[in-house]
């Protein structure tokens, strides 16, 4: 049985390919998922974003694409896991704690955009004046 979600490495590869579909020399940087080792990504959203990158590159002036992934809820609670290993590689202890981080919201990344086209779910759209 095949999982109905996209593997994270596949998601990253699809975004790379989407940016280069029209002009292979188009550069793309993907920021915001660097620390995630493994995840399943919602397939339909993956497809939508893939198409949006392709759409961005329709303009022949576009030479570079940046895909920025930011948490929707900007007050993020992470769980920290401090693990201690001995020389044989055995994990002898793991101590859990909370780590809160306040992260700039999407608006921080929009201040230089000439056009903003918000296609998120209705409840998630920002107020733009």
């Amino acid at each position, binding site marked *: 049985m095949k999982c109905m979600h996209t593997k994270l490495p596949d998601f990253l590869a699809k975004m790379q390919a989407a940016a280069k579909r029209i002009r292979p020399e188009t550069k793309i940087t993907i920021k915001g998922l660097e620390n995630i080792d493994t995840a399943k990504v919602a397939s339909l959203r993956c497809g939508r974003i893939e198409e949006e990158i392709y759409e961005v590159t329709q303009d022949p002036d576009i030479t570079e694409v940046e895909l920025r992934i930011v948490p929707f809820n900007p007050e993020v609670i992470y769980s920290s896991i401090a693990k201690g290993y001995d020389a044989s590689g055995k994990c002898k202890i793991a101590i859990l704690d909370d780590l809160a981080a306040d992260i700039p919201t999407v*608006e921080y990344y929009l201040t230089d955009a000439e056009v903003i086209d918000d296609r998120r779910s209705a409840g998630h759209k920002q107020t733009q004046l």
Partner: protein
Amino acid sequence: MKLKYRVIPKGAADGAMPLDWVFIDEKDIKKAALTNFEAVKVIANEYKDSYAAVDIVDLDAVSVTSDGIMNPIAVTAIASVDHGMVNKTYGYMPISEIPEYEGIFEDEPHMRQWHLDQFKGKPLHRGPNAKDRGTERAGHNENMTLTGRIANNNCGSEAFNMVEMTEALVFMSAANELMRDGEVTVCVAGPEVSVGIGMVVSERWGRIFGGANLGGYKAGMSAHNSGEYAKTVKSDYPAFAAPKEKFMKLMLDALDTGLIVGRHLGPSPALISTAHAYGTPIDIDHISDRAWIELESVGISKEEMSKPVAKPYTREEMIAHAEEIIPGMKNAKRYKVSDVVDIKEVEVDPKTIA
């Protein structure tokens, strides 16, 4: 129609202020025939190339400091604006009136200050209710707004720039001075303030803790619960406060009603030192060991606080000696509000609020 507002601009107070912080009197919003959220959109439009924290205040309402002292001002909405934008979900938050509920004076003894002549009958605003917080804020979300790089936290008393990593504190007593053309003192918050802001009282819909149920941190506990680290939390950030003799009066009013520090009021360095010098009781044993570690770390010892002073100061002496009695914010510079605040008026463009 014009909207009047005040701003502590970045660079104010001899460069101490790291970001723009806007304050709007609700009366001026009503004069401009706007809602509070529309007023925020007007301010956002003023910041098309910059960013600011926004507090909307009611000068005819009351609120409560984190350690339980009632103040003659309330923040009724907060916002964060960045380059003309307000994040729809997290960028704005109203703070509704809290009606007097049955049992409030038993559950929240510090609220007896509401009976004082200067506060009686005035609407209370502290923290948001569930509707104010909206459907997307989760349990871990603080009473904070965020848009872009600007966060406005704890119902409008601390604001951050999350990119430049700068922050400022404006205490409620300072906001009161700012809105009434008084005076403020400004300096690095320092260890005593850092410890003090963690010494909270338990409230429903508090500015920092508590919802429909009472907040879990009771008077006598430290919400920071961080031992010797607590004194470092705000040690590098500028704080705007009222001159000490001004908030000394508010603390004395609270103590004169019979409220006890450590039992009914948070044992912040300011309050415990005031109670000690004034000769009013301190519930030494009700103050938790963890809270004592934090107090001792800023030189307030359990042993010293357990010994009554030989000759307590009178009210007049307390006010006269406020500077030496209230610890912290040493060498703060005093400013007339007109020297740190710009008063502005903006013509409201109907397109802005459409």
